[in-house]
């Protein structure tokens, strides 16, 4: 029954990054937690850089609460006693429909730090896969995973939650693609081999950059970065140069991304002017400065045929997209409500069938037992009559309860409660798959 379903979550909503990273679970740790839960519950563990969560549905006869699940996470991390108390306060607990809604919100990306986070769908999918491998999924979680994937897919296809860039590095690529959407015939110059430059270079490489040059003071570091970002089946040309060789490449570059930690301008107006004069094309040059302090002289923006944008300009794009994504949240919430109702209905159907079957089996067993006990008191003919009479009697007695259990034109929760009552009244075994 979903009333027993529980979830605990430590996420960016309450916990600062140092707490989140301390409680982030490795694959091995997830496996270990699932192993300890295997006999007590169906369970799934999700752990990303922004959240660590356990969802659990206790099997019949077992009781699991949020505190128990929090203890599982904290104990595997072997924290000091005083830290345990501190960390416990960062957790949120959910139960029943709220816990179901929580996983729906997570997979749809509206609970993420970056609303509409595109990675979370795959991460939730991986979490369910890990549970399956650890044999901690059952009838309930299998149904839940299907419903959750449906929510995630609908959020993508029926809303614009995922449209537009939500990070600076991605916004840089999206901006460049508003000028050159086909990057196969374009030369991209990335200046700087730091984390920001690497992210932007990676996005460009993934979008079939025709030619990419990475310029860095330390060429060896640029080479290492290239090895990391170059897609396995990349058809474009990739090379690295020293910053000293920049002037030779500038006239050929269509898109220039600069992300160094240099204190002064790496690209000045005179150098860019010379590059534009040497350029054998009048197509625009896209320059994106994502460094702080800035790498590209802002005076360059006044040059003809140059689009120069800095981190603040890109932030405008990101903020706009974030606002728009926020406006999509009510649509996603509506999808979640719809899918929750659908899930609960399917769950009640899931419970109704086996309950009716078990009820009939139980009645039939009693009938058979009583017949057997009194078999000798009847001759063959009389026994056949009694057999037929008791069978009919049983069918008539069970007819109305069966009809009531099958009734779906009412609240799903009421139907589930009725199933629960019948199971308790007649002491039916709950044999989970």
């Amino acid at each position, binding site marked *: 029954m979903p009333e027993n379903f529980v979830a605990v979550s430590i996420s960016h909503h309450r916990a600062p990054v140092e707490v989140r990273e301390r409680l982030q679970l490795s694959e091995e740790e997830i496996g270990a937690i699932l192993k300890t839960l295997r006999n007590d519950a169906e369970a799934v563990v999700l752990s990303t850089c922004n959240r660590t969560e356990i969802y659990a549905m206790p099997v019949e006869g077992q009781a699991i609460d949020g505190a128990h699940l929090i203890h599982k996470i904290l104990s595997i991390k072997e924290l000091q006693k005083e830290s345990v108390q501190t960390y416990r306060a960062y957790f949120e607990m959910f139960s029943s429909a709220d816990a179901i809604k929580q996983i729906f919100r997570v997979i749809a990306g509206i609970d993420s730090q970056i609303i509409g986070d595109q990675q979370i769908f795959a991460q939730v999918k991986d979490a369910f896969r890990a549970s399956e491998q650890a044999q901690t999924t059952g009838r309930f979680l299998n149904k839940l995973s299907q419903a959750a994937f449906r929510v995630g897919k609908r959020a993508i*296809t*029926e*809303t*614009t939650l995922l*449209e*537009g860039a939500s990070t600076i590095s991605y916004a840089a690529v999206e901006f460049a*693609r*508003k*000028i*050159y*959407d*086909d990057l196969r015939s374009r030369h991209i110059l990335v200046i700087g081999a730091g984390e920001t430059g690497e992210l932007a270079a990676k996005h460009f490489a993934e979008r079939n950059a025709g030619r990419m040059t990475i310029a860095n003071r330390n060429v060896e570091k640029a080479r290492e970065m290239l090895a990391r970002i170059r897609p396995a089946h990349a058809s474009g040309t990739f090379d690295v140069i020293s910053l000293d060789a920049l002037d030779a490449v500038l006239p050929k570059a269509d898109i220039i991304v600069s992300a160094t930690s240099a204190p002064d301008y790496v690209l000045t107006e005179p150098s860019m002017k010379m590059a534009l004069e040497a350029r*054998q*094309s*009048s*197509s*625009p040059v896209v320059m994106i400065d994502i460094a702080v302090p800035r790498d590209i002289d802002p005076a360059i923006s006044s040059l003809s*045929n140059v*689009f120069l*944008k800095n981190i603040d*300009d890109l932030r*405008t*794009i990101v903020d*706009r997209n974030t606002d*728009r994504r926020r406006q999509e949240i009510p649509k996603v919430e509506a999808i979640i409500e719809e899918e929750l109702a659908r899930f609960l209905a399917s769950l009640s159907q899931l419970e109704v069938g086996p309950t009716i079957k078990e009820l009939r089996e139980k009645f039939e067993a009693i009938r058979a037992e009583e017949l057997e006990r009194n078999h000798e008191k009847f001759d063959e003919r009389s026994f056949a009559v009694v057999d037929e009479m008791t069978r009919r009697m049983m069918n008539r007695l069970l007819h109305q309860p069966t009809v009531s259990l099958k009734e779906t034109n009412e609240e799903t929760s009421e139907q589930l409660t009725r199933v629960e009552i019948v199971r308790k009244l007649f002491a039916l075994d709950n044999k989970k798959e």
Partner: protein
Amino acid sequence: MSILVTGLQIALPLAYGGLAFYFARTFFRSLNQAERLKHAVPAAYVVLALHALYISVYTAQNHHDLVATVYELFSLIAFTLLAVYVFAELRASRETSGTGFFVTIVCFVLQLVSSITVNNEIVQETKSILQDPIFNLHVTTSVFGYAALMLAAIYGGLYLLLYRAIRHNQFGAIFEHVPSLDRLERYGLRATAFGFIFLTLSIVLGALLYARIPLGVSASQFLVDPKVLMTLLVWLVFGVTLLVRKVVHLEGRRLVLFWMSGFALTIISMTVINWIGTSFHSFL
């Protein structure tokens, strides 16, 4: 039949207006791509079918194609423009839906002007040239040429709008929904090439027609006719755009400005010259 023609003359601007409204609604609202174009192609087909019916009925009633006056031509260009757009872009690429609003607005304006100003008097006898097959081919190729050039101008206008939006950090509807500068340039060039080919054919057919049918003008008068002169100028501008651009590295905004100047000449050729110039290009 005249009631039907009048009815269609009222219905067509409404239909184009409705189509433009549909594209505007999807252009300014943030809908995902699938939703954005769900009904665009069928809706455009309905408008085209309605317009085709109008052309047939009008031709049957007036005993000549929609080519005799500039107002009739406006209607034919609106039809051709939408047809070229639907078959060349809309059906093929769902990503370029951002251009639909601008194309349909132009179609709407053209059809509205045509519906308001077109002369509905039934002409029983028309000049024999209007029945000539080469003349009709000459005009048809012109219409296709002008429609393609108009489409190129729409792409060029969008290019300049987007260019400006990017330079001024205006990341609104134009930035979001209009295709990239690169793509607009490609589409514009394609439309220009298409227009240039048809304009070339039209000029050749026009010369053939002059040789075949006595129009009452001498060769020197023919060549200095404002409409002929302007058409040759337009043809030259687009020819240069297409043939010389690689040699002189004419790309991006400069290229767009060049072909837009060609389009400005086209507008002058179609309107001002028609109204104020003396031309033998008058058939009613």
